[in-house]
């Protein structure tokens, strides 16, 4: 009887998803759907927060006042994205504190791209163009994802991300028209960020175990390989405007497919970085833990102060 009831609920749930009716926090949902979303949204939130670090690395060294201001604003936007996403995940029954704890203990993942170092100013441009570009490619379909709070958070995030991407491209464009040293800096950053960026779409479809279920639930709308191909096609054209090259000798227009062919991705590197062996994994988490621990007394003081004030305002009981 109970089992039958669950099957009916699941059927009704799937029907709503199939009709593109948004799932809202109070609606019944399969436990696995909830867990998948918590994993994906919190991972996304963590990526925003950890992503503040490699870019923040250049705030104090930005080469002009205008660049400094835009970079601060950009990193600040990412903190804002983290906030909306943590809030969206909280509607699924997990607290921000729990999620942050999962990040700090390594239980939760974040986008591996942020485990690469930002070595020159051009990296700030390359992150904007390539990393934010890949993120947008992943995120635009999420504005139509089946879970309402996530979809709504993504609408706002995507607007800001596309602004960031244009800023990044503009940084590279300026470098590409600059001195020889600046041009070299630009090409070097593209060389280092290209492959990690196209890895951002995740493993190839035949190695992505969750894709089918996520597509059925309309959490995902396109497969990893579809999005990756779309991204390669766009970047292969945009790089020409910069007068630079993508570091892939096999990159070539394939008229028959109507797409660019590209070289083989080094999946060994991808899995190594995911499993903690990227150049900056330990530093990134250490920086987050440090900020959290050093902020503990501040958060405690704020709570203690709020409690004292609340007590003062409470009328004395006779």
């Amino acid at each position: 009887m109970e089992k039958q009831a669950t099957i009916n609920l699941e059927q009704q749930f799937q029907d709503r998803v199939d009709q593109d009716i948004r799932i809202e926090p109070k609606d019944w949902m399969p436990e696995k759907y909830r867990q998948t979303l918590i994993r994906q949204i919190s991972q996304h939130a963590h990526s925003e927060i950890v992503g503040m670090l490699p870019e923040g690395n250049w705030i104090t060294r930005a080469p002009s006042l205008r660049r400094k201001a835009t970079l601060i604003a950009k990193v600040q936007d990412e903190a804002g994205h983290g906030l909306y996403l943590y809030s969206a995940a909280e509607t699924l029954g997990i607290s921000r504190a729990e999620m942050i704890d999962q990040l700090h203990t390594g239980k939760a993942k974040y986008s591996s791209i942020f485990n690469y170092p930002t070595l020159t100013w051009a990296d700030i441009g390359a992150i904007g163009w390539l990393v934010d570009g890949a993120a947008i490619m992943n995120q635009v379909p999420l504005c139509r994802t089946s879970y309402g709070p996530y979809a709504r958070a993504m609408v706002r995030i995507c607007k800001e991300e596309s602004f960031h991407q244009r800023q990044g491209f503009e940084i590279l464009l300026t470098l590409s028209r600059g001195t020889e040293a600046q041009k070299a800096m630009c090409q070097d950053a593209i060389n280092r960020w290209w492959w990690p960026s196209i890895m951002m779409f995740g493993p190839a479809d035949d190695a992505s175990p969750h894709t089918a279920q996520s597509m059925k639930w309309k959490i995902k709308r396109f497969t990893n390989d579809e999005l990756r191909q779309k991204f390669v096609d766009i970047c292969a054209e945009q790089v020409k405007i910069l007068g630079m090259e993508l570091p892939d000798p096999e990159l070539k227009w394939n008229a028959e497919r109507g797409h660019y062919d590209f070289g083989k991705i080094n999946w060994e590197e991808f899995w190594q970085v995911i499993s903690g062996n990227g150049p900056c994994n330990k530093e990134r988490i250490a920086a987050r833990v440090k900020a959290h621990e050093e902020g503990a007394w501040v958060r405690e003081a704020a709570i203690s102060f709020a409690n004292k004030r609340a007590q003062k305002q409470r009328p004395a009981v006779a």
Partner: protein
Amino acid sequence: MFHLTLHLADDALIIGHRNSEWTGHGPNLEQDIAISNIALDQIGQARNFYQYAAELCNNNREAYTKFISSPAFHQVSGPIDEDDLAYLRDAMEFRNHLLAELKKGDWAVTITRQFFISLYQQLLYTDLQYSADKRLAAIAEKSLKEVNYHVRWSGEWVIRLGDGTEESHRRMETAIDQLWPYVGELFVPADFQLEAAASGLLKNPEYYRQPWLEKTGAAFEQAGLMLPAPNWYQKGGKQGIHTEHLGHLLAEMQYLQRSHPGAQW
């Protein structure tokens, strides 16, 4: 006028730079955003003042640039701009208060310093917006809206930490103790401030000492903190004699401009 404008710009840039060191490392996300926002306001104010200073400089280059000895600055061909002033002057040519350049410290030091400077800027800009110099007046008027918020935000934190936990109270006392010797400089006029006062552009900063002390005292009272007695104070920032910290800050901030002379970014 040029020195006064540079001084206002330098104060805003240096404290903005210090605050931006928190971006990505704040005690929680909300406060990370708040302090970054303040840094952004300050850098925006600095840009407005530098742009004006650059115009003044370009109109009478010889008169003003003789005060700047940095070789990098003198290699600029064509008109100078805001970035030349921010990135190509050496530490001894900066005119900010020492208070602005001290290290960011913990959250107590950051918010106490912010409160001290914002309160000073609030008093200053309130008058400056009626200055005979229309450009300075316009920048002050625009900046004042932001500064009013900075005063409120940092003042609330002073009270929250002063009256929070034992630890936060103790940290506030340490922060005040550390910063207090740098407060006196805010109210002692440099030559350019005396000149500005004589020509009616701006009041002598001495005038702000009393209202500043009263407002700080009021916040401290709510926070359960003691206002230290007036004491010996450190000075020199407005004359270009800085702490050891400014050189390091500038070395980091300016390095890219310096290592690629003439490049556009």
